[in-house]
């Protein structure tokens, strides 16, 4: 018998606390697989955010640091500047990365910090129970947009990859999804590349992963995947927004 699929060794044995069907777990696994495949577990340092993935430090088998809400890229900068040989990554939600952490995200990007950022966009604040996120879609009901997000009042969602792609320091920005096995495979490729870029000292790499929050969306796990496909992907098109290895025309 050959093992086609097994738990990556960069994941600890700890059972993840995520809700049933929450795709945070899938992305954790992809990150762990990338670490395994690149053989960098011993020199990887992960930064956990504040958000549902706050306990990421319990799940990744490398050295881990828990950052303050939104500040993971700043913490990562400190780590990377102190230990340039380590492979430093952050794992952050949309509230963390695109709201409170906007400045840290934009500036680590424009500085071209040689780090890897895994950005989980689930259109909601999961951890705190379903408030509006910067990425919440127009019309989406959340506990702080109970009548549906109105761009006139609550503003427009923010597309981080598109925005960050305008910055010179960004080596690579891609948006992926995990709604189907095929997309999971593509997400894996993107995450691998984002880590490989760092090993090759190419600069700032970010992979935005469209992810589900069945609990706060009030949907079953399977319905949540469909909702993601039907609502998020049209608003947040998948694709490569920047890749210094490629020419403009080659992208997406």
């Amino acid at each position: 018998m050959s093992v086609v699929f097994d738990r990556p060794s960069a994941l600890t044995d700890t059972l993840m606390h995520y809700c049933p069907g929450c795709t945070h777990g899938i992305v954790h696994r992809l990150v762990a697989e990338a670490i395994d495949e690149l053989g960098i577990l011993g020199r990887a340092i992960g930064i956990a955010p504040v958000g549902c993935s706050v306990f990421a430090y319990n799940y990744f088998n490398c050295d881990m640091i828990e950052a303050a809400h939104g500040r993971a890229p700043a913490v990562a900068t400190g780590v990377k500047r102190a230990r340039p040989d380590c492979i430093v990554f952050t794992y952050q939600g949309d509230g963390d990365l695109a709201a409170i952490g906007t400045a840290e995200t934009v500036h680590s990007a424009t500085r071209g910090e040689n780090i890897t950022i895994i950005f989980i966009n689930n259109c909601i604040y999961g951890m705190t129970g379903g408030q509006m996120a910067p990425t919440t879609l127009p019309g989406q009901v959340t506990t702080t947009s109970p009548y549906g997000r109105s761009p006139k009042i609550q503003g427009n969602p923010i597309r981080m990859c598109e925005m960050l792609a305008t910055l010179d320091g960004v080596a690579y920005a891609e948006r992926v999804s995990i709604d189907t096995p095929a997309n999971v495979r593509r997400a894996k490729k993107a995450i691998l590349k984002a880590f490989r870029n760092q090993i090759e000292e190419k600069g700032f790499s970010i992979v935005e992963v469209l992810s589900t929050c069945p609990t706060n969306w009030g949907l079953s796990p399977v319905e949540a995947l469909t909702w993601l496909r039907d609502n998020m992907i049209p608003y947040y098109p998948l694709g490569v927004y920047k890749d210094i290895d490629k020419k403009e025309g080659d992208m997406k």
Partner: protein
Amino acid sequence: MNKVTIDTERCKGCGLCANACPKGIITLNGKTLNSQGYHPAEVTEQEKCIACAMCALMCPHVVIRVERDV
């Protein structure tokens, strides 16, 4: 025969595996409750499994192991 092993004690019964399985051979066992309080997933007809690992790819809690008969 290909083999899919689900760690049912750690399964959270989300059904993403079942949803992904092209052979439709995974179901959530409505009868059993594991110690976490979930109805875990179960492979009903192992022999039909093609070891495509779609189930494992989608499992958020990484509790599925897939082996191919070689």
